[in-house]
């Protein structure tokens, strides 16, 4: 057979196996390697809620999809060019994601009777049963070969079997013409201190996998994906959304000169933000792993009152628990950033899957008239800027801010051209200056004209003693149940939030400024919408795209942008929450809804189809 090297513009690889098979690591190593190679990259981990779900079953399958390209990549890809399935269940759960010409690599040893039964196959041929027998099948005895490779390593059987993923990664490296050195470097970094004994065996099994692939006849073609040619110059790194969020908050701490305080409770998929901040005490971060979600936000409220940049991080159910305290932060008019990494709901819902279903809760989920700014992140790396901006708004406008992230963003990663902090603005909280004049009392809720922001005085500052809290007050900070005072304060707090529109960038339009169809999205769907937009353009179909990073308040030019299009389609991973919000604010426009609530991102294909229908 003639061996061909195919130059591919982009390829999608999906690694799937039991939740203990190490597929997340395999996938992320492959991703890191591709990033270092200079490829465009986007990743999507898709894993079960259980740490070790029942072995060999479809519900226990853990997947990691990597999309690499010779140009910038916007999404992890709808369908894959190569599926790695470590057992029958992984094949069964993922066969539907294979492209027509896809390559499927399986561990032959796992396809025994027991494995086939656990996965629920009814016939002896899983490939024909799933109608993928026309794909390129690479059926390799991975378990046997791994055992053979490590038989002299001195490792026990259990430890040897854990190296199957490295053998598989070796095969993938051969198929996609990736050098092994970056993985060797990784092994050195990771294990040289604590477990130097595992470095050698892992190197060996990786190389053996690579060599096996080079010799086996089943692999006719290999692929190269060239580095991006005209990528902006500079230093890059691979970053996921939760890490970027944590770092964006640290950046805001540095730019405001206020120590970062994070009070949080572990919750999937937001926990990694707390973990990342706990790691960075070197930058002054104080983290409190609180006794519950409520204590998380309440310790943050206390820390904010005392003058820290206060943050609490959570996911949907935690946001529900924090509702009352958010109201407290609103009426006490203290800065606070709440990060909600959204997951499938309601209640426990789909803890490890992605959704945009907390928007209503973020906008409205509190008692009383309780306006809170809502901002969102649109890609893993953008979480950095989004977190920075959320903190800037909170500190400069004396208000809690909700930052909506998504499981898809938090766990997903992409290459990031590392910015320089000198390009970020200073953050200037409205602190009082000097000591108050003799006989003058500080008025904690008196507002600056224009942006309606009250001044901030910290405990420990002489002469500014005052009280804040959850009960309605006058500008002087005195309890008041006066009907007109209450209404005035309600209006002033709303006006303060509305005035933030003056501080946020205008809505950017991608494509023509007017036309037949405007595609509208917010948050983590950006990559998919952008891909759909670009692909349609290449096919000669013109739509424009307006993607929102700011939801409350909306950019000042929103209505103007909308008015230039005959149709507007609002795409979101919920039942139409943003569309309903827009309908309330702009009744003059007709908003078409395009929704998906499956705990999965959009597919570019389904978006394109939806847009074509409207044209």
């Amino acid at each position, binding site marked *: 057979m003639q061996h061909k090297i195919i130059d591919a513009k982009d390829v999608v690889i999906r690694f799937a196996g039991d939740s203990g098979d190490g597929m997340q690591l395999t996938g992320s190593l492959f991703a*890191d390697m591709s*990033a*270092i190679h200079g490829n465009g990259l986007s990743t999507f981990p898709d894993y079960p809620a259980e740490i070790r779900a029942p072995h060999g079953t479809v519900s226990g399958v853990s997947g990691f999809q990597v999309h690499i390209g010779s140009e910038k990549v916007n999404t992890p890809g709808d369908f894959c060019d190569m599926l790695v399935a470590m057992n029958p269940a992984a094949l069964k759960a993922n066969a539907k994601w294979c492209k027509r010409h896809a390559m499927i690599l399986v561990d032959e040893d796992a396809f025994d009777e027991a494995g086939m039964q656990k996965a629920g196959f009814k016939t002896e041929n899983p490939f024909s049963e799933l109608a993928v027998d026309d794909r390129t099948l690479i059926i390799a005895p991975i378990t046997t070969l791994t055992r053979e490779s490590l038989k002299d390593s001195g490792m026990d059987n259990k430890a040897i079997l854990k190296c199957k993923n490295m053998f598989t990664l070796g095969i993938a490296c051969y198929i996609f013409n990736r050098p092994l050195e970056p993985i060797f470097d990784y092994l050195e970094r990771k294990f040289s201190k604590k477990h130097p004994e595992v470095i050698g065996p892992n190197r060996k099994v990786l190389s053996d996998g690579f060599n096996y692939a080079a010799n086996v006849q089943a692999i006719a073609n290999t692929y190269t994906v060239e580095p*991006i040619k005209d990528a*902006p*110059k*500079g*230093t*890059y*790194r691979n970053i996921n959304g939760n890490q970027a969020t944590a*770092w964006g908050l*640290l*950046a805001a701490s*540095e730019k405001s000169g206020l120590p970062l*305080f994070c*009070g949080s409770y572990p919750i999937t998929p937001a926990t990694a933000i707390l973990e990342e901040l706990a790691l*960075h*005490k*070197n*930058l*002054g971060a*104080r983290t*409190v792993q*609180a*006794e*519950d979600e*409520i*204590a998380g936000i*309440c*310790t*943050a*409220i*206390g*820390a*904010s*009152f*005392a*003058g*820290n940049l*206060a943050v609490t991080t959570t996911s949907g159910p935690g946001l529900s628990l924090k509702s009352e*305290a958010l*109201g*407290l932060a609103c009426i006490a008019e203290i800065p606070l950033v709440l990060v909600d990494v959204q997951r499938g709901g309601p209640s426990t819902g789909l803890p490890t899957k992605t959704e945009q279903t907390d928007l209503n809760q973020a906008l409205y989920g509190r008692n009383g008239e309780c306006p809170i700014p809502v901002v969102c992140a649109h890609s893993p790396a953008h979480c950095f800027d989004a977190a920075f901006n959320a903190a800037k708004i909170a500190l400069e406008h004396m208000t809690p801010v909700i930052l909506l992230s998504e499981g898809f963003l938090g766990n997903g990663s992409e290459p990031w051209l*590392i*910015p*320089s*902090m000198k390009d970020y603005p200073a953050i200037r909280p409205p602190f009082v200056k000097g000591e108050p004049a003799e006989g003058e009392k500080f008025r904690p809720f008196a507002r600056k004209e224009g942006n309606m922001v009250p001044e901030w005085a910290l*405990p*420990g*500052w002489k*002469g*500014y*003693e*005052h*009280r*804040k*809290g*959850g009960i309605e007050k006058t500008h002087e900070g*005195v*309890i008041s149940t006066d009907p007109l005072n209450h209404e005035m304060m309600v209006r002033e707090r709303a006006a303060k939030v509305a005035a933030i529109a003056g501080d946020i960038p205008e809505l950017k339009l991608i494509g023509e400024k007017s036309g037949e169809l405007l595609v509208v999205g917010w948050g983590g769907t950006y990559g998919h919408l952008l891909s759909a937009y670009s692909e349609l353009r290449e096919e000669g179909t013109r739509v424009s795209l307006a993607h929102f990073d700011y939801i409350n308040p909306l950019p000042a030019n929103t209505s103007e942008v909308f008015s230039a299009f005959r149709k507007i389609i609002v795409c979101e991973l919920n039942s139409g929450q943003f569309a309903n919000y827009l309908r309330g604010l702009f009744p003059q426009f007709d908003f078409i809804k395009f929704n998906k609530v499956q705990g999965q991102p959009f597919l570019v294909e389904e978006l394109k189809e939806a847009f074509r229908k409207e044209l």
Partner: protein
Amino acid sequence: MAELTFKDFKSDQEVRWCPGCGDHAVLASLQRALPKVSQALGYEKERFVVVSGIGCSSRLPYYMSTYGFHGIHGRATAISTGIKVANPELSVWQACGDGDALAIGGNHFIHAIRRNVDINIMLFNNRIYGLTKGQYSPTSKLGAITKTSPYGTVENPFNPGSLVLGAKGTFFARSLDVDLPLNEQILTQAALHEGCSVIEFLTNCVIFNDGAHKDISDPAVRADRTVTLRQSERMIFGKDRNKGLVFDGERLSVVTIGENGITEDDILVHDAHADNLTLQMALADMKGPDFPVALGVIRDVRDTTYDRAVRKQVEEVSGKSGVHCVDELLHSGSTWEIK
């Protein structure tokens, strides 16, 4: 530093508790204690912060002229924790009731004690929900008749002292609302204690639970039904100062000096600084009719405080790390160049 007086801690707000409410006395005690604390620790007025939850006693921050934060129901302890961790230089005082701290806020209460956050929790225990007009609380006695227990409660109450010591609290004291000199002394000692101090004030609610603690506070019986514990002094009580407590290693008992060969030398000497909790736990648990209720500082021991430990760790890690700013952080770990 100018010497502060109680007037410096009084706000211009009208105190709106019912006439005869026990909270008035505790407020006055705090306003008298803080100048002494200020003197002892060298703290200016602006370093004091008073935090509260929801309930009658939680209005206290408005009656103090210090920095204050009036939180939400049950969460004062979490708010205080955040304030203290954010700025350990502040002296944090918390007012909360039995419903606030032990029912809706029970979780935060035990965890602040477990962590030993250096805050001073004033627990106003009137065994009733006052602000919602008379429902039973977690400290209402079994069988208490209230609006939500018209036929009597069928649940046992918490003894706050047992809860505090059970969570390995480092400071617990108890006092009667009306005992201003003891209140003042306890509050001052609580302020000097580094760590989480819980002071239980047995307060009266004239409207919904009048005589909440009458069985021990009535002047006619107080001397016989309470024992005020003082460091290194014998646990002697009674109108005639002839009763005392002895401990056989397992249980406490009340004895009479001069009877059965008992002399003053047989009576226990109080040691609030003893690390061993056994005796302090037994003292905190004492109740009538067999025992006097213990007042005064029952436990006062030193341990690392959470707020200092958090700060120390930040300092230690910062000292060792090679990453000192965000630019360095962004370039740490795996990166690559595109030229």
